[in-house]
């Protein structure tokens, strides 16, 4: 079997005979799944990794660069060694992914198979690939980077997403749907106290905060709470002083279950299991990922009980399969009933190695040796038990190298001197098929650091421990660098009580309870410092050389010492990079890529720090650590995006357009008819009889109040305070640099009430802008956005009056209702605001009415217009009609530098006003020669220019500007347009060239509208 070790049948069933009480498995339920095309079986509760390991699989991946075989290491989702593709999803951690019946699992980054990967040849030439290799090679011809890059590119990357892309873009084998039917969602939660980490200290923190009345959310990334109590397999010894002496003498997993039940039974407690907090953001916002969901948790107080993780020490071949981290080994044995091997070696430099040795012995694995770099241990009674079991113990020894190809077969150990150096000539070979490393903890301070709280290196504990905590932040447990259950329990209680006590609006039940809590807090705080003191004393006695990175003469010759398993960075790379000048931990990271892989430094941050500090001679504390950026674990893009919802705005008439067969286009969030039949036909109707267009997407604002006119005078360049009631006026809004931002009409409906239209896309902006200035100037003016409430139709053409007369009693004659006037009245029985304006250049009314009448109003207009040949017209026809009139569209015929003078709209600027937004800039602009001017042009031949074409001088030698709009004009019979050009061309009859399709086409400048230049038709 692929990736599997040749085994006999007994070993293939690699499970303990009797299920242990700590197991997460339901051995009565079997599940089948596929691994690289083969059928595999698992128990309910198994992870992909535990099921595969139990079936004999030992190689789980091939490494990023050298394609070396890699096996399980952390068994907790912290390292990159078991990344696989699951149901087409790449880079899934097999050690945390539960088996589901029928799932398809594939290995990654290898060919043809995990066991035999031809790319592993890269490993053999590894010494020709020093750190910074690519920076130093492929610089000059003939092997330039541009020639070799594509080859290197094809060799990199881990997971493959071809399948998913194919299915998402409709080329998939199935029905075009994603091969995984996943729905992603966002949830929002709030808490008084959030506790991150559901180990013993986190549970006690949650319980104490809950007892005090706080609403608590407990977040834990495991399926079962209890942290290491779940898998350590120890019999607990708990002091009475902690208040939890009753648990003493019990099995740790049983206590974990009891504690889990206690929190789950609490009414004011929410337990989020299988949930990983991935980021702490501004104002205590916690990003949490749980399956396909992202949970945003906002909490008043944060308790960090995130513990610590182990990392491997650095020796030759330390990456061989079956070299485990101690806690990973314990998980495999105690949570999944796996018997990991036959002959094990435990390598340690702290007391947790003793516990691992016990776990292995309890599981029936033969312990070949216990190796500890210290001369004394903190739990001599456990050491005695190990020795009693006839296990060889080596105190003051460390591992120099692991041997084996694809699997560990033995290790070489050496004596260690007082400086932590290996003693030459003391080598001994210990044969084994399993190595467990308990070579150091790193506090899991990643999330804590994101709060702005600091961590400092503690020389005694040899870990980065929390200091200078931000307000509302509390820590407890392994995260403090102290690995002691009694202390952890009390620290948890202190954290929970303090968090609750500092809640601003704590619902305090009774004075008595508060007093009790205050006393408990005092007591436990005192006890914690006493116990911590004792713990530190103990550390001083057992403390020996740490031996994180094994140095040995010739240690780099052929066998690699891996610092970073994600990116295949070896010890030599770090030393060389540091020597080359990358001695700042931040540049070291970027140059060597150490800590930048999928584990984001969880496995390599401490060893690389040690190496850097060794080369530079600076202490660990001086060397410091890199910034901890979110996310703490990689998070699926789908979960971050949530349900993909995209708002669509439809006018009240939208479905009538569909019925009429209109081609629909997007305009911002709106949907609008682009064209119904053809531009020619629609154009003809408007110019010769009558056309109707749905303009409900226009922004509409009501401005009311005593100072409404004053406000508009200040914000627009024109004057509106003098506008007579019933009149409309065109207006332009500029920013303080005099640049045109928006335009529209302003109609005065009463002394204190103006009705404004804005362009479709800008209504929110204009609303904000007006509100901002009304507030800043302290004006009595109130702005209401009425866009959604009003439908609007423009009825335009020589027969528009005839049509509307059939439907209204409002006097529409030119005498009674001239151009740029307004009226309120009923049309077809609907209350309306009628504006006589003429964007398309014909007699016409823009009619605003309650949106709910949209379909009725539209149908009634079309019905009444039948006898005149009325036609609905779309946006494209309107563009042609308005261009013939040279009516400017802001944003198309103007850009981010256009002032009203350049846009040929000088008449909209009234300098007689005392002040208005943009006045100073416009006064200056008026005095100087403009840099360009908006002009009209007519093409000389049949060429139709494109919006955005460039404009040149007549002889083609000078680039003078660009086309803003251009269309074929039925009126002119040729293409007409507008262009922003050098000011010397702002002259009737100037000759210019428009570069279209790479040809320079002649055109002539016109300053007047192309259609009805006197404006007789729109006033008729």
């Amino acid at each position, binding site marked *: 079997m692929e990736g599997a070790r040749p085994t006999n049948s007994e070993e293939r069933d690699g499970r303990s005979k009797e299920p242990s009480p700590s197991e997460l498995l339901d051995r009565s339920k079997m599940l089948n799944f596929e691994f690289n095309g083969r059928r595999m079986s698992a128990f309910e509760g198994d992870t992909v990794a535990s099921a595969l390991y139990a079936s004999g699989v030992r190689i789980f991946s091939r490494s990023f660069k050298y394609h070396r075989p890699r096996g399980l290491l952390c068994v907790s989702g912290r390292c990159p060694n078991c990344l696989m593709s699951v149901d087409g999803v*790449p880079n899934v951690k097999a050690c945390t992914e539960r088996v589901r019946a029928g799932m398809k699992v594939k290995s990654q980054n290898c060919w043809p198979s995990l066991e035999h990967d031809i790319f592993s040849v890269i490993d053999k030439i590894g010494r020709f690939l020093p750190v910074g290799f690519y920076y130093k090679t492929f610089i000059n011809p003939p092997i330039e980077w541009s020639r070799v890059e594509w080859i290197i590119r094809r060799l990199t990357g881990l997971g493959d997403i071809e399948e998913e892309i194919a299915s998402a873009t409709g080329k998939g084998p199935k029905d075009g749907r994603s091969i995984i039917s996943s729905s992603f969602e966002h949830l929002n939660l709030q808490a008084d106290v959030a506790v991150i980490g559901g180990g013993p200290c986190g549970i006690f923190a949650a319980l104490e905060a809950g007892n005090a009345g706080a609403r608590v959310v407990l977040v834990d990334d495991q399926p079962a709470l209890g942290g290491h109590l779940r898998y350590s397999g120890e019999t607990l010894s708990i002091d009475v002083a902690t208040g939890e002496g009753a648990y003493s003498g019990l099995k740790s997993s049983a206590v974990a279950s009891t504690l889990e039940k206690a929190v789950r039974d609490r009414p004011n407690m929410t337990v989020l299991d299988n949930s990983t907090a991935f980021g702490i953001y501004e104002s205590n916002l916690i990003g949490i990922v749980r399956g396909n969901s992202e949970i*945003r948790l906002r909490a008043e107080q944060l308790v960090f009980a995130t513990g610590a993780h182990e990392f491997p020490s650095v020796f030759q071949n330390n990456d061989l399969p079956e070299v485990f981290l101690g806690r990973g080994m314990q998980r495999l044995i105690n949570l999944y009933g796996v018997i990991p091997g036959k002959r094990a070696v435990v390598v340690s430099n702290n007391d947790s190695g003793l516990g691992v040795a016990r776990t292995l012995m309890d599981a029936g694995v033969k312990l070949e040796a216990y190796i500890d770099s210290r001369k004394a241990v903190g739990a001599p009674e456990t050491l005695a038990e190990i020795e009693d079991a006839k296990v060889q113990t080596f105190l003051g020894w460390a591992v120099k190298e692991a041997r084996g190809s694809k699997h560990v077969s033995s290790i070489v150990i050496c004596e260690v001197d007082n400086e932590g150096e290996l003693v030459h000539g003391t080598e001994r070979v210990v044969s084994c098929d399993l190595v467990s490393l308990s070579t150091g903890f790193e506090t899991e301070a990643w999330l804590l650091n994101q709060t702005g709280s600091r961590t400092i290196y503690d020389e005694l504990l040899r870990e980065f421990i929390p200091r200078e905590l931000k307000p509302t932040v509390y820590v407890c447990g392994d995260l403090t660098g102290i690995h002691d259950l009694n202390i952890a329990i009390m620290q948890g209680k202190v954290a929970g009580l303090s968090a609750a006590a500092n809640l601003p609006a704590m619902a305090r039940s009774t004075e008595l309870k508060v007093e009790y809590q205050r006393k408990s807090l005092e007591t436990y705080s005192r006890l914690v410092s006493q116990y911590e003191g004792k713990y530190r004393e103990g550390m001083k006695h057992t403390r020996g050389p740490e031996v994180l990175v094994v140095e040995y003469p010739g240690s780099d010759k052929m066998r690699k010492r891996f610092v970073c398993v994600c990116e295949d960075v070896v010890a030599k790379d770090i030393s060389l990079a540091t020597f080359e000048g990358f001695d700042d931990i931040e540049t070291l990271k970027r140059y060597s890529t150490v800590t930048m892989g999928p584990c984001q430094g969880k496995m390599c941050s401490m060893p690389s720090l040690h190496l850097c500090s060794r080369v530079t001679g600076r202490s660990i504390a001086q060397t410091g650590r890199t910034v901890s950026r*979110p*996310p703490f674990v990689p998070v699926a893009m789908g979960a971050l995006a*949530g349900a993909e919802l995209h708002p669509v705005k439809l006018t009240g008439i939208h479905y009538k357009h569909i019925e009429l067969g209109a081609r629909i286009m997007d305009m911002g969030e709106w949907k609008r008819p682009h064209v119904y039949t053809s531009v020619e036909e629609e154009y003809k109707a408007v110019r010769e009889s009558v056309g109707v267009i749905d303009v409900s997407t226009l922004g509409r604002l009501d401005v009311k109040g005593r100072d409404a006119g004053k406000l508009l005078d200040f914000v627009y360049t024109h004057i509106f305070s003098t506008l007579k009631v019933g009149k409309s006026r065109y207006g332009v809004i500029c920013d303080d640099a005099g640049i045109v931002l928006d335009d529209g009409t302003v109609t005065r409906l009463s002394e204190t009430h103006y009705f404004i239209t804005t362009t479709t896309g800008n209504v929110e902006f204009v609303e904000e802008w007006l509100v901002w200035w009304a507030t800043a100037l302290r004006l009595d003016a109130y702005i209401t956005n009425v866009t959604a409430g009003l439908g609007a139709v423009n009825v335009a053409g020589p027969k528009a009056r005839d049509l509307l007369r059939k439907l209204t009693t409002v006097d529409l004659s030119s005498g009674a209702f001239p151009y740029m006037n307004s009226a309120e009245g009923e049309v077809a029985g609907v209350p309306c605001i009628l504006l006589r304006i003429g964007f398309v250049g014909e007699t016409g009314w823009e009619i605003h009415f309650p949106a709910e009448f949209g379909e009725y109003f539209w149908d009634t207009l079309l019905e009444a217009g039948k006898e005149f040949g009325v036609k609905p017209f779309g946006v494209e026809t309107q563009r042609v009609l308005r261009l013939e009139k040279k009516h400017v569209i802001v944003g198309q015929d103007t850009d*981010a530098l256009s002032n009203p003078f350049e846009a040929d709209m000088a008449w909209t600027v009234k300098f007689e006003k005392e002040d208005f937004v943009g006045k100073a800039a416009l006064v200056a602009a008026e005095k100087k020669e403009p*840099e360009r001017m908006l002009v009209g042009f007519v093409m000389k031949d049949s060429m139709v220019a494109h*919006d955005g074409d460039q404009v040149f001088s007549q002889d083609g030698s000078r680039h003078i500007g660009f086309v803003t709009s251009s269309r074929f004009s039925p009126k002119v019979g040729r293409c007409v347009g507008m262009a922003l050009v050098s000011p010397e061309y702002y002259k009737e009859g100037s000759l210019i060239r428009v570069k279209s399709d790479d040809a320079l086409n002649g055109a002539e400048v016109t300053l007047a509208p192309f259609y009805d230049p006197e404006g007789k038709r729109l006033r008729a």
Partner: protein
Amino acid sequence: MRALFRKEKMWQRHKLKPRYDVVVIGAGVHGLSIAYYLAKNHEITNVAVLDKVYLGGGNSGRNTAIIRANYMTVEGVHFYSESLKLYEELSKELNFNLLFSQIGHLSLAHTDSAVNGLWRRAEVNKALGVNSRVIWPDEIKRMVPALDTSDRPRYPVKAALYHAPGGVIRHDAVVWGYARGVERHGGEVHPRTEVIAIDVKDHQVTGVRTDKGEVIRADCVVNATSGYCTTVSKMVGVDLPVVTHPLQACVTEPLKPFLDKVVVSANLHVYVYQTDRGELVMGSEIDPYSSYSQGSTLETLESIVAHALELFPGLRHVRVLRQWGGLCDMTPDYSPILGEVDGLKGFVLDVGWGTYGFKAGPVSGKRIAELIATKRTPDIIRPFRLSRFREDRLVSEKGAAAVSH
């Protein structure tokens, strides 16, 4: 190959000297390239580049390393296209492989007006000799098969501006390459050395003071900082029309190669490309508020990712590995501020780089060096002088630079 196995230091740790000809504040690509070209082109080698943090620890290390020249204004196209040409030769020049991948750059349009904007850029680019053209969904689909070019998305892709010489570069390598170049030509690089004051006497800059108490004399001080260009200029009483906004980006786990173009959508405020290592790099437009925080927000991450999924729906299960933020010094016209300041001798600006500074590192370094050495402002940077704001001669790149890349 010999160079590969030679153990060489890239730079040294120096003690600060009491006097330099030029002090450059900011050891990013701009500051270092100024020092490099001062030494290389003008033999001014008594130069120190100082930085508050590590080499390239500002935006040179935080930007997403996209190089292009397809700008909107004539001034912009000239300027960035000179920079692109310098970048094309820079690996050889510095004898350091900067991993410049000219994979091609696509700016997508999802609306009619955006199509017009692209057309205008394509035509301006062509007119000035820059390789750009508008392409349509069929061709886009062929270039980027993973992109959803169907009409299913809320805003389907309508067209793209294809800029073949655009691409990405290893941004840190550019910093290191220049830093080594500075040192080899006799200049000095001083990371973790913060300037806290600039001395001025009789309208002439005379030197700087550092956080460690050193007083350094220099007649020419260059402000080549990002994020803090306003605070540094304030040290000499110069107010800049700059507002600082955060800009955020993120990167995913490495994947097998499937995307070999830079894909930008201004309408969706997002850009995406895949590195040689297989990671997807994604970024956004600037955050809507001003701030000096380099922290990350969940909201922006969600928005970047959601928009990227609109373009590439097959990426839902791809995981984000890391997010980060940088600081963008935004000017009113989305163009930089380069050159001297009226009424203050010896103070040179290379600031206001918004979201487009990295692309311009080589050209501004070369031209600012020329300005310092010759005491004349080169024509190519004259449009970007500080006084343009007073003269109302803005160079608006808003249309081409509002979404950062």
